């Protein structure tokens, strides 16, 4: 009884703001606005690039963290998880202090003719910084859930560690990795705070969907609401699809 009441209240609290977005304003007009389309298209492209980088670099790291025990493992895990609990503004300032024109590496980057702030690369870096922990954590859980004896059997049967990873660990951890990719992608799409500090805001270059929503508050509320509606539908759709595909292991980790 109490459980049902609590569930009802929680669900209405969580869903009401999202439903309100769909009920307010003229979404059809908003979605036709060029700003909304440019922002959504940019977000889609850059979030997919971010996801690709996260998967390529994060998967081997997660496998290492899941299968080996080494003295500094807790330290590495903490470093990987830290961006999850930091405010995005910290990420934005940190990225500027490291990669900005006057940042730690600014001088070297300038010598190499590279300027990162205000570029698409800056947006991708901000996305990866805040979203990769979600993917890596989920991937670690997925690899940890793989039966060790199967990995050992593969090795005894003569497969190298690389082959064991590709032919045994990856397929068995596949659904968990899929859930991690969904979470990481959704978080990358939602990135706002670090982007606006590190990458700025310019239509078609760095003005992603969340920034367009923020600016839409002033200029074009319909465009902002329509952009928000698309984000809700897309992220909700991806998360639901992963659940429906029966990713049982996803329950091992609930995002913050």
């Amino acid at each position, binding site marked *: 009884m*109490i*459980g*049902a009441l*609590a*569930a009802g*209240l*929680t669900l209405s*609290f969580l869903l009401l703001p999202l439903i309100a977005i769909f009920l307010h304003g003229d979404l059809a007009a908003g979605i036709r606005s060029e700003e909304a389309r440019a922002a959504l298209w940019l977000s889609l492209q850059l979030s997919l690039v971010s996801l690709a980088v996260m998967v390529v670099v994060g998967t081997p790291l997660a496998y290492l963290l899941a299968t080996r025990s080494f003295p500094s493992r807790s330290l590495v895990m903490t470093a990987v998880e830290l961006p999850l609990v930091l405010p995005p503004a910290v990420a934005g300032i940190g990225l*500027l202090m490291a990669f*900005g*024109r*006057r940042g730690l590496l600014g001088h070297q980057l300038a010598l190499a003719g590279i300027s990162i*702030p*205000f570029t698409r690369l800056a947006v991708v870096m901000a996305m990866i910084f805040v979203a990769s922990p979600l993917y890596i954590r989920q991937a670690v859980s997925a690899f940890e859930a793989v039966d060790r004896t199967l990995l050992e059997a593969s090795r005894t049967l003569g497969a190298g560690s690389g082959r064991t990873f590709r032919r045994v660990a990856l397929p068995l951890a596949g659904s968990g990795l899929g859930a991690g990719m969904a979470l990481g992608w959704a978080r990358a799409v939602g990135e706002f705070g670090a982007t*606006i500090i590190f990458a*700025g*805001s*310019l*239509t078609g270059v*760095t*003005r992603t969907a969340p920034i367009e929503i*923020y*600016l839409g*508050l*002033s*200029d*074009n*509320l319909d465009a902002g609401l329509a952009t928000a509606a698309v984000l809700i539908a897309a992220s909700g759709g991806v998360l639901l699809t992963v659940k429906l595909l029966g990713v049982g292991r996803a329950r091992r980790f609930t995002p913050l």
Partner: protein
Amino acid sequence: MRSRLLLLVLTLLVAAGCGSGSGSSSGGSSAPSGGNLVVFAASSLINAFPKIATTYQQQHPGWKVEFEFLGSDQLAAQIEQGDSADVFAAASTKYPEQLQSQNLLGKTTNFATNTLVLATPADNPAGITSVHDIGNAKLVVGDPSVPIGAYTLTVLDNLGIKPSSLNIVSQEAKVTDIVTKLELGEADAGFIYTSDAKTAGDKLKSIQLPASAQATATYPIGIVTGSKNAKAAQQWIDLVMSPQGQQVLVGDGFGPAPSS
């Protein structure tokens, strides 16, 4: 087990909600003798208004002035969406007029003016000496939807410079975001208000614009319709208009209230 956890989360949420709710409304009946006066102000007023608030709180014990500093357009949108504010002070006449047409804002008074300068980081990395040197510089400007961005377009137009010929790297939602990016040295130059340049002191170098190209921002202030603290709000406006308030504004780089 699971339902208990849900209940706990829910209780916390409700508790948090109540906590923040009770503080903001001043409660009381017709004319409370104290409470919180909520002032929505353009972000360029972020330094001047708190100084005036100190005087206000000395003159009106029991009252506390709470500020929300954002782009005028965003503040107007918040008022349209029903955020409870008592006073609205904008950096442009556009948004107050927009609110007045919906009966959301009372009569306004123009309390200050502001002009624009071209600002660079203190060390001026692009070596800019006049507004005609900005062709290749990395420029950070205001988004055209916010007053500073609209005024910047006016200035560029007056100068005969096409925005598309410039290297604009970012269009920010708030003046303070432009200032930050200049202070950090990430951009070479940007158009900001004279008052912002004055506040930034030697962290920025400012380059005056030719008088013929200048755009003058007018700052109106008014009481938000439905304010429960209308009397206190009027006292705030009176103080801003008084010689004391005007002195603070001029000291921060604003022009005095236009005589109209």
